[in-house]
Every structure is written in C-alpha cells, then in structure tokens.
C-alpha cells in the first residue's frame, strides 16, 4: 500500500486541497450525528457517503402520493422478489428507492443472513423504525455479571447526559414511567393510546403487577422541535417526511451541520480503506473510489469517524491492510468482524376483543405500545433457562379491509362488511436480546469482487440456544397476557427469522477495557489507532433488547466531544 507523504512526487497543493480536520465515513444515523457535533465544534469536516445525495423533501418522490398513485398498490412484483430477494423483504413500492439493489451490491451468505441496506445520503435513517429506548446499568453490567463476552467500559452515568443531549435535539415523544431499567428522558407529549390499548394496559397491570404498558417512545414529533414537525399522523414515515416530523439525518443533523459552513458532503464516495502512517501510528486519511467515475482519490484528516454501519465499517477495517496491520486496521485483538449480533423478533401473539364496538380513532399513529423488559430484572423475575430478556411492541387497530376482505362470501353483504370497521385486534410482538458469540462473524471473500473490484463481505451468523429458549417465553407470555385481559381467538406466532431481518446489526468492533479482547476503548476510540473513532452499531459490546439507534447517537455525540477535546490538547 502506498502511504501518503512517502511519494516524492506528491502534489502538496493537492494534499492541502484534500485535507480536512475530520473525515466522517457514512451519513446515516450515527454519521449524521458525528458531522453535526464536529462541525458545530468548529472542525472542517468531510462527509463521505457511498450513495447518491438525498435532499430533505426534494428527494422524497413518493411522500405525498395516495394509494391509487402506486401501480401495484404497494405490493412487490415477482421481479422484485427475484432480482432483490433480500431488500424486497424490507421495502415496498413506496420506499424501494431508499434500498440498494441486491444485484449491484452482492455479499456472501455463509449461513443465511439478510443484509438490508440503504446506500444514500441519510442511509437507513430515512427508513428506520424510530423507536428510542435508553439502556441502563442492567444492560451495561450484564456481560460482567454473567461472564459473557467482555465488560462494557462504560456505565449508565457515562452516557446519561448524552442521551439528554441527543433526545433534546431529535425530539422523542413518550411517557415518563420512572423505571430504573428503562430510564426516562426529556420527552415530548406522549401519543394517545386507543380504547383497546387502554383496556389491555389496565388489565395487564392488574394481573401482572411487574409488567408495565406504556406508549412507544418514538422519534416522531408530537410537538414541533427546532422548526420540524409536528407529526401529521399519516404513518408514511419510510417515504421521507415532508413535514420533517421524524428524525432522519436528512431532516435534522445534516442541515444543522451544513448551517455551520464547516461541512463538505461528497456523495458517490466508496471508502476502500483507511490510510495508516506507521511512524506516527495514526490514520492519515482515506482512499475512496468514486462510484460513478471509478477514479480513486485520497482525502486526509486529523481524525476519522467510521460510521458506515456495522458490516460496512467492518469491511473498511478488514480491507485496510498494511504491514503494521496485516489482518486489518486496528485488529491486533483479532476481534474485528466477530461477535456480530442482531435482535431476534417476530414472535408474540394477537387476539380479538369483542368489546369497544362504539369506539374508533382518527389518524394513523406512527407508533405503538411498549411493554418494557420484565424478565431477569430482579431475583423474583430470574428465569431458569435463559439470561437477559425481551420487550414487546404492539398495538390495537380495528380490522380494516385487509382482514375483513378475507371473510367468506361475495356480493352486497360481503361489500357491506368490507367497508365497515371490523373488531378490535391487539397484537404484541417481542424484540429479544442476542448474546455476543465469537463465531458469528463478518469476513472478506477475496475470491469474489463487486463491480468496483472490491472483495465481497461474507457473513456467517446463527442465533444461539439462549435466544431459542427465550423465544418460547416470548410467545407464551404474549398469549398469557392477551388471554388474561379478555381477548379471544388468540393466535401465538413465531415466524422464523434469520439474522439481519431486524436490521439491528451490532458488535463487530466492540468496546472494552482490554486492547487484547476489544477493538475500541470507552471513548469509541480504537485501542490501536487513537485518531480513529467508530460509533455505529459495530461498537456495541452487547445488544440489550432495546432498539439500538438512540444509543449509537448518544455514543457518537460523546465520542465527538472527547475527540475534539483531545485534539485541542494536542493528544491526537
């Protein structure tokens, strides 16, 4: 590998033109936060994004469309299923343009794994689920207590102020509940529950005092924040919101970074590798390939934030091989690429309630109810056959045409039934913690190349016994709660999922105290290369059962603060 500064013909002017204080790789949820924080702290920052630009509002072509504007009424075609077998699991006709093409972006499934991606400015922050839950010391201490993986190098007190910082900017609607293991934040007004949900909440709390039902905590603005929102209750978030009423990089962090005058955004920039100077023991910049022209360029900076998303960031490190790091940049521990996690989910139950016939609702709430973890949180709730726990998301609606249309018959009476609100249906579905396992890994398949000549990512992932045992409880507890609150026709479900389906990939560059067993320190700084910070999902030491994005954002803001302080002190 050519190392910058060693080439005698190096054009010094070009180096200067290509130099910044900071480079951020990736513009999704965590990368967006990195550029906002770094730019606001005065750093000239280059943001590299491998996909096209997506400008807030202007590039949301489907946002204001009605159902009849879609040729296939939001159903995928056979062509979608054949040509995009993985991405089409996650997209529909209204948001397909925010997902990659499987054909153009192949990867190797050593075991089945669905790698669902959005290569564009804003990344998957455009299509994310928007649920925001803080972690607590129940999560940060678990690995240490149980001797699983490595200990988190931080505790709740380290991240709490950064949760505040992030939540105030992005806006999270929710209800403060005072639970120690699901800490509250500065919430916007909680969204409403409907009649069946309120009934479910009060019945469950009567029969299961340790189980709380609260409204989902979502980055959907029930009130306007920083000129964005409020939510119009259309529930079309994944198309991009023209009201800016949910958090995405495009609507929030990128405009804030741009407003400082310190941001340079370069779309179509595929980072091939991070450049390393073995004398200084620092990263000096990155080499990219322009996705359109296929030309390579180098950019230089004092610090680098790697936020390409868990698997893509792993690729970049593994592909940054030098004499100093033959197994990939900062991989002296041998942990880079290992301990891949994703939540396991799609297990729970649903049922019908015969009551509340006189009740209905107006609006489409982009949010549901939440049942925080209630297993293994105390001595009394300790389970014999598995560790950690799960939380439910759910909600009630009155059956609409997609269900009433399945009733037998045809003709006038069928039509009448089709057009009338059906019975109340309540569903709850669990999201469960997945334990870190060294065998679940991301590697490079150097024998196979993509259209830019880069080796393919190979993914080998299986859920373990703990997850399998937990799933039985996830289903049984859901059925039990619905049964005891007066629901009928209860159907438990356990749809088998493969890794990646939850789109919560984590863990391949974990944080830890010991450089021998972890990749990042407590500041998300590489143990081996102290001017590289990694704050996407890859930094996660365990997965908890909460949706992880809020924690990525808080860790990013915290790491940026540390990086800028260190830079000022001359330590980087």
């Amino acid at each position, binding site marked *: 590998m050519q190392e910058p500064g060693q080439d005698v013909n190096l054009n010094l002017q070009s180096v200067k033109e290509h130099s910044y204080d900071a480079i951020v790789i990736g513009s999704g949820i965590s990368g967006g936060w990195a550029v906002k924080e770094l730019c606001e702290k005065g750093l000239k920052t280059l943001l590299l994004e491998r996909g096209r630009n997506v400008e807030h509002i202007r590039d949301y072509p489907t946002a204001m469309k*009605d*159902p*009849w504007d*879609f*040729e*296939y*009424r*939001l*159903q*995928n*075609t*056979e*062509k979608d299923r054949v040509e995009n077998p993985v991405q089409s699991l996650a997209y529909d006709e209204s948001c397909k343009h925010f997902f990659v093409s499987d054909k153009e972006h192949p990867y190797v499934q050593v075991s089945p794994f669905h790698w669902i991606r959005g290569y564009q400015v804003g990344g998957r922050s455009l299509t994310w689920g928007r649920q925001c839950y803080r972690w607590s010391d129940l999560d940060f201490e678990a690995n240490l207590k149980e001797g699983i993986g490595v200990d988190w190098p931080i505790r709740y007190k380290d991240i709490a102020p950064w949760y505040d910082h992030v939540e105030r900017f992005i806006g999270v609607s929710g209800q403060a509940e005072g639970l120690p293991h699901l800490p509250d934040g500065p919430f916007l007004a909680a*969204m*409403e529950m*409907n*009649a069946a949900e309120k009934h479910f909440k009060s019945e469950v709390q009567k029969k299961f005092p340790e189980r709380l039902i609260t409204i989902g905590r979502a980055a959907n603005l029930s009130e306007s924040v920083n000129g964005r929102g409020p939510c*119009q*209750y*259309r*529930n079309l978030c994944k198309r991009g919101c023209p009201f800016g009423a949910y958090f995405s990089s495009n609507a929030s962090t990128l405009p804030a970074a741009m407003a400082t005058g310190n941001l340079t955004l370069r779309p179509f920039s595929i980072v091939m590798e991070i450049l390393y100077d073995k004398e200084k023991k620092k990263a000096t910049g990155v080499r990219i390939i322009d996705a359109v022209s296929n030309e390579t360029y180098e950019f230089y900076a004092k610090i680098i934030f790697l936020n390409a998303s868990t698997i893509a960031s792993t690729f970049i490190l593994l592909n940054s091989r030098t004499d100093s790091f033959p197994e990939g940049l900062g991989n002296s521990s041998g942990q880079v690429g290992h301990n891949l996690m994703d939540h396991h989910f799609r297990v729970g139950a649903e049922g019908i309630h015969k009551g509340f*016939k*006189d*009740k*209905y*609702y*107006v*609006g*489409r*709430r982009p949010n549901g109810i939440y049942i925080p973890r209630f297993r293994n949180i105390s001595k009394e709730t300790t389970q014999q056959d598995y560790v950690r726990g799960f939380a439910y998301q759910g909600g009630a*609606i*009155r059956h*609409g*045409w*997609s269900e*009433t*249309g399945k009733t*037998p*018959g*045809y*003709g*006038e009476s*069928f*039509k*009448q039934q*089709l*057009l*009338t*609100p*059906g019975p109340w249906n309540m569903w709850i579905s669990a999201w469960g913690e997945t334990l870190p396992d060294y065998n679940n890994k991301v590697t490079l398949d150097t024998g196979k190349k993509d259209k830019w000549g880069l080796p393919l990512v190979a993914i080998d992932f299986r859920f373990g016994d703990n997850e399998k045992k937990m799933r039985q409880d996830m289903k049984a507890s859901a059925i039990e709660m619905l049964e005891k609150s007066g629901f009928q026709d209860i159907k438990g479900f356990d749809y088998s999922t493969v890794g990646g389906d939850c789109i919560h990939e984590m863990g391949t560059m974990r944080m830890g105290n010991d450089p021998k067993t972890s990749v990042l320190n407590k500041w998300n700084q590489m143990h081996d290369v102290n001017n590289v910070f990694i704050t996407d999902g890859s930094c996660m030491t365990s997965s908890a059962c909460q949706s992880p994005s809020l924690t990525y954002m808080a860790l990013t803001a915290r790491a940026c603060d540390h990086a800028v302080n260190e830079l000022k002190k001359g330590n980087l």
Partner: protein
Amino acid sequence: MDRKKAIRNIVLLGGGSVLAFAGFRGYKLFRLPALEKLTGYQSTIDELSEMIIPETDVPGARSAGIGIFVSKMIRDCTDRKSQNNFLYGLQDLTAYSQKHFSKHFQHCSAEEKKKIMDHFEKKETSLNGFTGKVERKLLGESFFSLLKKYTVLGYCTSQQGATLGLSYDRIPGKYTETQLAPGQKAWATQ
C-alpha cells in the same frame, strides 16, 4: 397432532415428491403460464370482480376499473404456480357454465352466474386451515382466492373505493379516539 405431523412430513419430503404423484398436474402448475390469454378473459374478470364488490349506493368494482388491475397483478405480482391456477380457473369456469347452462359465462343470467360463483367458492373454501396452507405452499394460490384478494386490494386502494366506499383522510393532523358514528365507514388506510 399426529395428523398435523403427518402433513408436515409430507412437506418435509418436498414439493417434488407430492408433485411427482400428481403427475400431469405438476406439469400444468410449473409450465410457463399462457398469460396472453388473460386479455381474452378480461370481460369475464371484470364481471367476476363486480360480483365480489357490486355497485350499491357506492361504486362497485366495475366503476373503479378493478378487472384490469386484477389482470395486472396476476401478470406482474403472482408466482408462476398461482398464475397457472388462475388461468385454469377461468378455463374451468367457462367449461362449467357451458356444461351446466350451455352458454358462455357472460351470457348467463344473474342467478346462473351466482350458481357458478357459489360452486367455485365452495370448491375452494374447503382448502382453508392448516391443510389449506400446506396446499397453497405446494400448489400455489387458488383461482377464487386470487380473484378475491386482488379485487379487494384493487378496490380498497382505488380512488373510488378508498374515498367513496371507505373513508380516506389524507392528512389527519392528529391521532385521537372517537365515538363510532352511525353508518361509519372503515378507514381506507391504517
């Protein structure tokens, strides 16, 4: 439970073995569907959709142009086995009306059409439940269920169906509980 297990074992043996003894039926399912025939059946499909969602005080499937949508969905959004089932269903329906009423389906009286429709609906509702699910997986979706599914989808997402049949609130601006009004229509979108 043993029955379920037995069926599951059949599934584990794979579609191939079931279809092997199905013989000709297997060939019929996997052959390249003669989609060009859909055009010739278009007025029959229009008629069938209208029978599922007829015109009342609010528009029916025909006014909403649903027949064409059903054909489009069969063409572009349906797997090969189900496409074949749909085409054979139309063929069977034509043959059935010839055999029982000695005329083309289109020329049958309303009462005769209803008899034909009842026959096809009955034939297929026997496939509900777990065995039905297994069958669907192996043999594709059935004629009547495809017809009904796409008619319902097309109608409820059409401008006529969503705004006149159902209730469509483009930008609600709020989410709140309400009392059900007399004659309340269901929401077109959730």
